[in-house]
């Protein structure tokens, strides 16, 4: 008997099904169109560029799931990856 398998909880295919469903439903429910993400992107850019110079071509925004630190349940998350070129002077105090 595979002892390791016995304690490995997410070996079940139903857990895989549930995880995949949860992820796909975030997108379905949020109805996040590419335009919607573009809008967020544009506004983020305008706010952040007041303080730092950023690499616009490297900017990436997506909707995903992440584990909550407190109880490990997964929650939807908006992840933005914004490469900084250099800080602007008015950002320093």
């Amino acid at each position, binding site marked *: 008997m595979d002892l390791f*398998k016995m304690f490995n909880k997410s070996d*079940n295919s*139903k*857990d895989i*099904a*549930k995880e995949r*469903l*949860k992820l796909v*439903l975030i997108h*379905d429910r949020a109805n996040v169109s590419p335009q919607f993400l573009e809008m967020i992107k544009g506004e983020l850019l305008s706010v952040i560029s007041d303080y730092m110079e950023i690499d616009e071509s490297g900017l990436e925004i997506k909707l995903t799931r992440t584990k909550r630190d407190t109880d490990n349940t997964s929650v939807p998350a908006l992840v933005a990856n914004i490469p900084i070129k250099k800080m602007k002077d008015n950002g320093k105090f």
Partner: protein
Amino acid sequence: MGEVIVITSGKGGVGKTTTTANIGTGLSLEGKSTVLVDADIGLRNLDVVMGLENRIVYDLVDVVDGVCRLRQALIKDKRYSNLYLLPAAQTKDKNAVSPQQMQQLTAELAKEFDYVIVDCPAGIEQGFKNAIAGANKAIVVTTPEVSAVRDADRIIGLLEANGLKNPQLIINRLRIDMVKRGDMMNIDDMIDILAIELIGVVPDDEHIVVSTNRGEPAVSNDESIAGRAYRNVVKRILGEDVPFMDLDTEQGFITKLAKMFGFAKKR
């Protein structure tokens, strides 16, 4: 004034028509006057599932077009008291009827019957809009598969957006053996995802195929576990507080013992 309940799912082939037939027959067995409305225009099937296909003269589109009176299109099921079917048209398409016309039609039927059960076509287009137009309650049917649950979630959103708040859920074709070995989502998994009230769990049952072959709804068959599950659904519709079936009864003594000592066999 009767209640108009739409049976819907989004995905096809999850058991909407079977559920409509069984709930309707079950309501009539409980003494409620009931009419089944097949809203799947162009792909009618409720008539064959009910075993009434040879008695169709007029259909839903004929009524809407004024070719016949509503009464003339209703087929009485002679096996049960106060059970009628309004068949869909087979040769027309879904655009032959508008949501307004469906609303009028179901309102007319609700004056005469305790329950009007509408069998909704698959999809989210015109046929769906027609089927839900006159409903004041919705039951969503799903099976424990990712595709069916995803579509159910979409349908729940659309129902709520169209003013049908608090739809209820039927989980159909649950395989207890597969749930036990962790290869099928269980009831809690699905409630967790869809977050709506559960009104029934129908186990996968060969009797359904046999009863559909014969055109006799399984709800009238005491030997069918699915039939018993549908009878419970009917009682819940009527407001009775019926506990959900204990689907774990087949679990053997050895498995229980093994579980007790914490080394349940993993298959």
